[in-house]
């Protein structure tokens, strides 16, 4: 496959798509799929066939469009004859019964939002902050291309970066470009990607591996799933470029078995890429060969830790081992191994294509590019967003997320999953980058972002994450195995209203112990939700242990009577009657 052949495929595909005047895209990623998106697509197809518009309307299943809370989503693109631009109309909460109306609206042309709403549809404006404040690099094709067709990806400049890299660039030039782009690992820790690549490239071994970590396990996080489901070729291309740069011939994608659609799309994508000669032996007629295999995770959260993940691929029990040696030096089967997250690989092709300077212009001084977040919890718009680094939490939650619904008060946002922390209102103007989030006690993490309002009890939130860490601890090292159990026990005691101030002191002591003595990142970061809630919401802990009950009235510490008592004593803070529980 040469660059000319690639261009030809792209042109043929674009021409074939242009024949259709209307493009009706149905989101068939996991979120909308669970809302019945497949039936919507079938109904639309049927309607198109029945109304005899087969040559004018193209119905295709595409990846995630982001606004998952309003799914199933359908967009209708109509090529306007006079302009180059296309006219895009998005519909939310589409049911199969809406299909005739949607197809009919194509005929009438410039139907206004009012007309569409009158016809029983839910038109969804795309000129709102939710869409306009985002910047899409990783998700640029998501919601636009058919993830099961390589031609569609190629028509959107796919594989140009790979072919350019292996035919026109040296491995060192590729690494230099990634280095100067400032890309950092999107799995959470933010290690400079270029530096990692150059370390693996420098090792003299013959056999090297590239691993894509797709064992996304944080509760409420689904960024990697969306990327794999919506644009699998982008990850394959990134991995192949990485393999060329570091000198590897074999790659593995370690994806959790709970993502069947992502696995299906990956398998299809690998097969298609191999058939086209974009993966496999002597790619583009060069001496570079690269094969990718899929390995399924068996549901252990700890296998997202790189050394545990490697053990799991080797067929061993998935437990971490002490580092050093780091995988870059001794990883899979003791060979040098490059291991990066899905989103990191997804950033590679655009960097190679557009250049390092382009990427480095986006973001802050130390955190370049964009970050995908899974916005969840008590916000108006939940879903998948991609924002430039350096945007403030306030912008994300209030502009993109549309603020806290039902007139409730914002309380905290949790970033980084069980390893992250809860950020209170006073830090809402903090920029979102690796350093700033670390400074306020949380982490960037892989991209989970859960918003909580006044009805959330922060002790309960801490308990929830501690329970997660306790049951997901691999059990190898004592502080994590036994320490998380003790921490959880104390938090349970507090939320049951049976604790004393001495228990809070013990909680703090245990947090210190587990954080500093655990073997791997899971244990070392497990106390974070407790530490940050203690730091910012100490009064809630105090209220639980001094007999005032749960201030939010939600954590089940016999809240009814206790909260009522507190209400009469302190004056009603208003929210205590609410029985809603988030998370």
């Amino acid at each position, binding site marked *: 496959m040469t660059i000319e052949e690639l261009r030809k495929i792209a042109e043929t595909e674009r021409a074939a798509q242009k024949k259709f005047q209307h493009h009706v895209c149905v989101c068939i990623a996991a979120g909308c799929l669970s809302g019945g998106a497949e039936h919507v697509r079938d109904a639309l197809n049927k309607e198109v066939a029945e109304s005899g518009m087969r040559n004018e309307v193209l119905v295709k299943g595409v990846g995630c469009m982001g606004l998952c809370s309003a799914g199933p989503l359908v967009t209708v693109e109509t090529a306007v004859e006079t302009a180059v631009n296309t006219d895009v109309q998005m519909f939310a909460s589409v049911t199969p019964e809406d299909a005739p109306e949607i197809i009919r609206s194509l005929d009438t042309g410039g139907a206004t939002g009012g007309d569409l709403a009158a016809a029983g549809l839910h038109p969804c404006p795309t000129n709102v902050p939710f869409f306009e404040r985002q910047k899409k690099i990783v998700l640029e094709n998501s919601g636009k291309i058919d993830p099961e067709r390589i031609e569609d990806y190629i028509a959107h400049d796919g594989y140009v970066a790979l072919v350019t890299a292996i035919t026109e660039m040296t491995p060192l030039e590729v690494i230099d470009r990634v280095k100067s782009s400032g890309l950092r690992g999107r799995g959470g820790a933010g290690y400079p990607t270029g530096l990692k690549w150059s370390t693996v490239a420098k090792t003299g071994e013959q056999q090297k591996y590239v691993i894509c970590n797709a064992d996304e396990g944080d509760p409420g996080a689904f960024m990697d799933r969306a990327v794999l489901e919506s644009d699998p070729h982008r990850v394959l291309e990134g991995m192949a470029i990485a393999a060329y740069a570091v000198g590897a011939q074999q790659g593995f994608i370690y994806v959790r078995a709970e993502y069947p659609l992502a696995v299906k799309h990956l398998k299809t994508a690998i097969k298609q890429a191999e058939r086209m000669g974009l993966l496999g032996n002597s790619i583009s007629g060069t001496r570079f060969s690269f094969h990718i295999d899929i390995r399924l995770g068996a549901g252990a959260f700890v296998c997202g830790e790189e050394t545990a993940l490697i053990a799991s691929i080797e067929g061993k029990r998935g437990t971490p081992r*002490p580092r050093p040696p780091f995988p870059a030096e001794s990883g899979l089967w003791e060979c040098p191994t490059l291991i990066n997250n899905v989103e990191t690989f997804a950033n590679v092709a655009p960097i190679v294509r557009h250049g390092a300077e382009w990427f480095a212009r986006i973001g802050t001084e130390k955190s370049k590019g964009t970050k995908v977040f899974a916005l969840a919890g008590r916000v108006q718009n939940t879903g998948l967003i991609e924002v430039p680094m350096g945007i403030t939490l306030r912008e994300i939650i209030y502009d993109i997320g549309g603020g806290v619904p039902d007139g409730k008060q914002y309380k905290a946002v949790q970033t980084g999953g069980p390893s992250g922390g809860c950020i209170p209102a006073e830090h809402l103007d903090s920029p979102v980058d690796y350093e700033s989030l670390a400074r306020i006690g949380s982490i960037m993490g892989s991209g989970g972002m859960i918003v909580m309002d006044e009805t959330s009890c922060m002790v309960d939130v801490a308990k929830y994450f501690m329970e997660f860490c306790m049951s997901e601890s691999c059990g190898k090292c004592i502080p994590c195995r036994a320490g998380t159990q003790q921490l959880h026990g104390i938090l349970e005691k507090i939320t049951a209203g049976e604790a004393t101030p001495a228990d809070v002191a013990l909680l703090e002591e245990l947090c210190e*112990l587990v954080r500093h003595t655990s073997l791997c990142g899971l244990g070392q970061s497990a106390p974070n939700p407790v530490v940050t809630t203690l730091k910012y919401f100490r009064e809630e802990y105090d209220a639980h242990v001094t007999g005032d009950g749960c201030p939010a009235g939600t954590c089940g510490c016999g809240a009814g009577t206790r909260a009522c008592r507190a209400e009469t004593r302190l004056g009603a803070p208003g929210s205590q009657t609410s029985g809603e529980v988030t998370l």
Partner: protein
Amino acid sequence: MSAHSPIRVKTLTIDGRECGAREDQTILEVARENNIFIPTLCNLPGLSNAGACRLCIVEVKGVNKLLPACVTHVSEGMEVTVNSERLAKFRRGILELVFAERNHVCSVCVTNGHCDLQSMALTLGMTHVHFPYRYPRLPVDASHERFVVDHNRCILCSRCVRVCDEIEGAHTWDIMSRGVECRVITDLAQPWGQSESCTGCGKCVQVCPTGALSEKGKSVAEMSKRRQFLPYLTLMREGRR
């Protein structure tokens, strides 16, 4: 140039004492050579290191994390602190967590007086446990004709797993489940007596630091462990290589 393998020598300080070491040695090995005590539970000379018990954590100047001495290799000019108030507190805390996790009542234990866990508590000055005791009710497997496994005494150090795999070559033992649910198992969690891979050599019993693995017929405080075979076997095998 000599034909010998070029192993370099490093100098480092451990608790202010200057020590010389080969570059392939760990901090723990060098400390032992110099009679500096570093507490360990999962480590046993002759077996691979797991880095799991975390008792051997040390401070290294310039590194912001605590490092396990058993798997950390020496480097030139390294300044290691083994004894500090902070480390002593952490080590006692870890030990307390172990004592609170399962049932470790010494007075009714077969290894009372010969137990690594017990003597470690004495050495580290652990006078009491200030975490709530969990006391899960775990089974005792006495199906093997000569040995017993009492999961209530197990600290999951994985010495039995490693000796069975690395020295005996049977890999009868392994660990199942996650977190506090972890348990040592024989074969695929079958009763020990029905294990087809177990050779009955008893090495696991001898390396077990507590009363989790013991010989049948031993009463309270009668089970002492004999581990002389391990350095002997390792030495003979290395000599043959």
